[in-house]
């Protein structure tokens, strides 16, 4: 748990379940419940395997966030889970987590008194992991579907950070080429100088998840079942840009996706060169468009439009539950930099 305080546990009670953090051995029951619950509500759902589960929750170098409601027999009543992220907020190290896989097993939860097992589990998660300070999650965020959003806003105090637009480019609109003096190369691994690049990028956004070799290796090279292409941009040998591409789909539309985008703020032409590479990857994959998700409040939102990206709405809207007044959703709208790499969407 990366040095974090062991959270308070709550033993089995009148509710008929215990609230506690994940313990080794829970994974089979968690996975069985996850696959059953989500298959019932999502016809396109593909069951998750144990390897993927372990990657998601045990492999993340930023830590684990798993809070469960468990019956005495070891069955999972509800889960509140998140992807931990090491952050720099105003230059200070801290954490946040992206809420994912939240669920309640209807077998147990129907007829339960308010607040239900799910809400109690989420409240336990926040008690365990969230708050102010370097080892707590400053905010918890997510990309809710409509049903989750109704519960999130009414019972868990989530608020909308933004309504997310999608930047997309087609062969007709795309207008970036290679940049003189910038060498773009596809690579098979992340080197240690990624952190140096991140340290140059980070001061331009007051709120940003740490990009370093361990984190990106976990996110893109160790994820089971997914293949990503990674490119670096260098000027005179110095890393000035990093991009990750994936052939896939977004909101059901086949496309190339720019999953990660980290550009030295003093070398915007590195972004042009990497966008050129990513668009070539898109055409190579037989796709018509390249898409990227960025905050509209950050500089690359406009810079992407200047090289031929256009904007259309999406169904997505990041929401956040914040634990200090400073990190109000409007502040996050203004200062938080994220890419698809921060999400579980690609």
């Amino acid at each position: 748990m990366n040095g974090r305080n062991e959270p308070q546990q709550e033993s089995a009670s009148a509710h008929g379940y215990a609230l506690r953090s994940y313990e080794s051995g829970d994974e089979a029951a968690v996975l069985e419940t996850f696959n059953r619950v989500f298959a019932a509500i999502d016809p396109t759902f593909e069951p998750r395997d144990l390897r993927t589960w372990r990657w998601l929750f045990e492999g993340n170098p930023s830590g684990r966030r798993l809070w469960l409601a468990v019956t005495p027999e070891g069955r999972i009543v509800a889960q509140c889970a998140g992807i931990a992220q090491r952050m720099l907020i105003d230059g200070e190290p801290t954490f946040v987590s992206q809420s994912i896989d939240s669920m309640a097993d209807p077998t147990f939860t129907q007829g339960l008194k308010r607040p239900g097992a799910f809400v109690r589990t989420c409240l336990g998660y926040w008690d365990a992991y969230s708050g102010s300070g370097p080892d707590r999650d400053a905010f918890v965020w997510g990309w809710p579907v409509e049903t989750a959003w109704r519960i999130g806003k009414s019972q868990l105090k989530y608020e909308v950070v933004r309504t997310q637009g999608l930047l997309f480019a087609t062969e007709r609109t795309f207008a970036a080429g290679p940049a003189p003096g910038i060498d773009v190369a596809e690579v098979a691994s992340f080197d240690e100088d990624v952190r140096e690049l991140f340290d140059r990028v980070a001061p331009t956004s007051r709120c940003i998840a740490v990009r370093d070799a361990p984190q990106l290796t976990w996110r893109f090279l160790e994820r089971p079942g997914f293949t990503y292409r990674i490119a670096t941009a260098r000027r005179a040998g110095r890393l000035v840009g990093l991009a990750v591409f994936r052939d896939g789909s977004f909101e059901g539309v086949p496309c190339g996706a720019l999953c990660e985008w980290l550009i030295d703020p003093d070398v915007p032409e590195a972004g042009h060169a990497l966008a050129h590479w990513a668009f070539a990857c898109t055409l190579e994959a037989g796709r018509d468009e390249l898409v990227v998700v960025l905050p509209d409040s950050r500089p690359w939102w406009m810079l992407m439009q200047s090289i031929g990206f256009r904007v259309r709405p999406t169904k997505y809207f990041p929401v956040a539950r914040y634990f200090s007044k400073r990190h109000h959703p409007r502040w996050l709208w203004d200062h938080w930099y994220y890419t698809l790499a921060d999400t579980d969407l690609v």
Partner: protein
Amino acid sequence: MTANDYEIREYLPGDEESIVRCFNDVFTDGDDRFVGRDVESWRWSFTDNPAGWRVYVAVCDGRVVAQCAAQPLRMIVEGAEATFAQGVDSMTHPAHRRGLKRPGLFVNTANAFFDRYGGADRDVVHFGLPIEQAFKMGTTFLKYEVVRTQTVLGLAPVVPPDTWPAEVERLGAFDEQVRWLYDRCSGAFGASAIRDATFLEWRFSRPGATYVRLGVRDEQGILRGLAVYRRTHLVVDDVGCVCEWLVPPEEPEVAELLERGLRRLAHEDGATGLALVVPDWSPWFAWMQERGWRVHPSVYTMCSRHWVRRLTPLWLRNHWWYTLADTDLV
């Protein structure tokens, strides 16, 4: 101060001077751009609005010290007439911000306002475009929710056509053709304020503001599209704001003429750029980008509080047509 020191009630004729005095005291505080309001302007905002007025005040010692107010809009929502109202000029006099304990004087005034005006048979939606401070107040105490973080279509620099497009005319008074045009456009809108001569004449007769009305007509003189322009401050200074844009989506040739007219007008007017607000689901959102307009972030968040279950912020995001004319920003 106690609750007995304040009377919270609906506006009564004669309140306007005290409201305006309070408004000027509140908004002059720390705003270099602020231009004091007069009673004529207040009357235009509220009592002259053909859709009516929504004003609740808190009065202390005979003076208005807080206000919760809104400008109603006659709407068509899923084919039926309804009313939305835009919250404007919310205020509490600085000397009374500690008046009453939690939830405070303004929230008490607002709650009385919502009790009076919100409901399935009254205003079905209240909305607003608050900046950060008002946004926190609205979401924390008044149950406002985010419809969308508002983007603005912007064009800068403006490259004008060499000449004024001959098919584009400067319109005089609006007439019944505005409603005909609205009816041709509104089929795709789940919810929209009714554009007719009454509404637009009131909206674009705002005291102290100069608007230019542009239109394109067919050979029979029938109005095929209209745009209303005003150079003002919107995020940045001297922007040519497209306050209204009403063109059937299946008539891009009309849009092209109007857009060229707007470019020419902005150029002649010395505007630094052009700005337009339309919903991002609108075909015009994509069309304008094809013409070189870009999608800019803004400090505004469109928020709503709904009184009919189905008119959730999510539904409004996907179905509600609005332009700057629906707001008090320009």
